[in-house]
């Protein structure tokens, strides 16, 4: 009996241990190491808070965070606005037997490398790219527009990536929604718009928020897209972190900037979790 009790206590731990070990090894320990590193001086070592104070006192560092938050907010909002109708069409309008194929076609662009896709966007948006040639060729504009190497280009590249991610999370949420909710709303006299606004949208908000949070996390930490499409005309936080490492190898400052970035992500998570009680979903 007692042996059964011991085994009953041991087995769950045995099953959880690999995941815990993984988390400790690849998240907790590196995070602690990064924390220690962020509190040491680049030259000569020793404890210092100067890596953090630099962020708050140097306007161009601070501006990098502002830029990152602005770009991430725009990308998240635009992606949600585009992904929701797309997911709704897939879930509600496409016949069930075609849905799998439609989803596969939707994620097809992801089979191409992220870097290649970013460079492809650069060619599309370039001065001699597809869009400018079409506009100048049709006589709509006389001089090519500057589309590449701008914040617009960065946002476009990001949105292309994240719309599909959000579509998948919202689609899963819409599919889980029982049709009886809509039938009940119709029985009570609600039209399609009212049903959507008062029944479907609130019930799919957790899916939207999960997707939006994932978009926020991946977007604010991404280095490649702003580097390739933004033309380095404004710095975002990941680029600022990379700058510290390239030649100077200033890992303490890079660590401090990374921890500040993680703090922002944590605040975003807490805001989402409190508002929508994601932890109970």
């Amino acid at each position: 009996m007692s042996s059964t009790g011991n085994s009953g206590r041991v087995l769950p731990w045995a099953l959880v241990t690999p995941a815990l070990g993984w988390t400790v090894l690849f998240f907790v320990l590196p995070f602690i190491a990064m924390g220690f590193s962020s509190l040491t001086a680049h030259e000569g070592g020793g404890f210092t808070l100067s890596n953090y104070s630099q962020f708050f006192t140097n306007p161009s560092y601070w501006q990098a965070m502002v830029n990152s938050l602005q770009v991430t907010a725009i990308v998240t909002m635009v992606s949600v606005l585009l992904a929701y109708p797309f997911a709704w069409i897939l879930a509600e309008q496409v016949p069930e037997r075609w849905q799998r194929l439609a989803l596969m076609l939707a994620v097809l662009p992801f089979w191409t490398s992220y870097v290649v896709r970013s460079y492809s966007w650069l060619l599309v948006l370039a001065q001699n790219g597809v869009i400018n040639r079409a506009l100048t060729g049709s006589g709509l504009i006389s001089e090519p527009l500057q589309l590449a190497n701008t914040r617009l280009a960065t946002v476009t590249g990001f949105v292309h990536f994240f719309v599909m991610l959000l579509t998948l999370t919202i689609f899963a949420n819409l599919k889980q929604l029982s049709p009886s909710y809509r039938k009940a709303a119709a029985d009570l006299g609600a039209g399609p718009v009212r049903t959507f606004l008062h029944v479907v949208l609130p019930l799919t908000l957790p899916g939207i928020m999960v997707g939006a949070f994932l978009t926020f996390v991946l977007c604010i930490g991404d280095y490649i897209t702003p580097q390739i499409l933004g033309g380095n005309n404004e710095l975002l936080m990941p680029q600022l972190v990379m700058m510290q490492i390239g030649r100077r190898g200033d890992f303490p400052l890079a660590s401090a900037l990374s921890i500040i970035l993680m703090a922002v992500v944590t605040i975003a998570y807490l805001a989402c979790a409190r508002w929508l009680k994601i932890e109970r979903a």
Partner: protein
Amino acid sequence: MSVKSGNSLSVLKRHLHAACAATALLLGAGSLAEAADLNALIWCDHSDPALLQPFEEANNVKVNVKEFEGTGAGMAIVDQSQPGDWDVMVIDSIDVPRGVEKGLFEPLPEDKLPLADLFPQVKMDGSTVVGGKRYGITEKFGYNTIGFNKTKVDPADMQSLVSLTSDKYKGKVAIYDYYLPVIGMAALAIGKKTAELTEADLPALKEELLKMKANAKLVGEVTASQTALATGEVDILVGGGEWVTAGLAKENPALDFSIPKEGAVLWSQSLAMFKDSKNKDLALKFIQYIMSPEGQARLATSSCYWGMPANTKAALTDDQKKVLRFDEQPGFLARAQAYPAPNADLDKKMQDMWTEMLQAK
């Protein structure tokens, strides 16, 4: 249930033992393979199979390469490695003393290297020789200068750095995203010597950089700069030289570079051998191969980027020499100045100035 749990645990234990054994075997096999290989910490031009294959075949070895960008990143890889993991390293010539200070490098035997065949100006003994011992040998060099499309700009304008900030080319310019050489070019533009820059020069340098930024469409690393010039997004690249235009010359012969009257910034990369290398003989053979006329020609025309070979006897074809403007090198070298080599404090201030320039609207 307890019996079942006990079985599950013993099965798990057996599997873990098996996995450990398999991992140990794999690791053992890996270390055996590494013992016969040469491990090189390199820039992307050395990963070209056309460069490595002849050496591998001649010596019946495998060259394992790990690419990095920037001395800081390279040093970080070394810091995170075990002594003996690496045999050779490619490094900015001006940064060789940084590696020597850290006790990383082995002195090179000068009598076994073709030092007499090198362009004298690129030997850079001030950096590659420390305490009377040679720790690095320059293998490739070039200029951070003006790269341009000669069908879109007036080539005569490209003979002066003043054109880079004139309204005539507003929105037609890209800036190469590496603060040291471009700050060096800004120094040349305001009549300062790159070797004599001090903190007092920073305000004037910043003003010059901001003027360049006001004319620029983008600030990009190697690939982005090349793409911008190749696609016609910009017509001029500040800080780009033969390493941008030479590789694209076949597809677009309109691309060229100039060494303006104010001068250009000389970049130079060196090869160094690790003190803890387990294959010092092979490492030396590799350095000798890279420095040989054949190795130099292959390195100079590597698919990642072209650059001038340090060895005057590099076995380049006439066409390759023409693209690299081999014959004009004595004149170019006479006008070139070295990379700025600031101390740690000034280096940090220069990087912060660069960050401000990037954020400027």
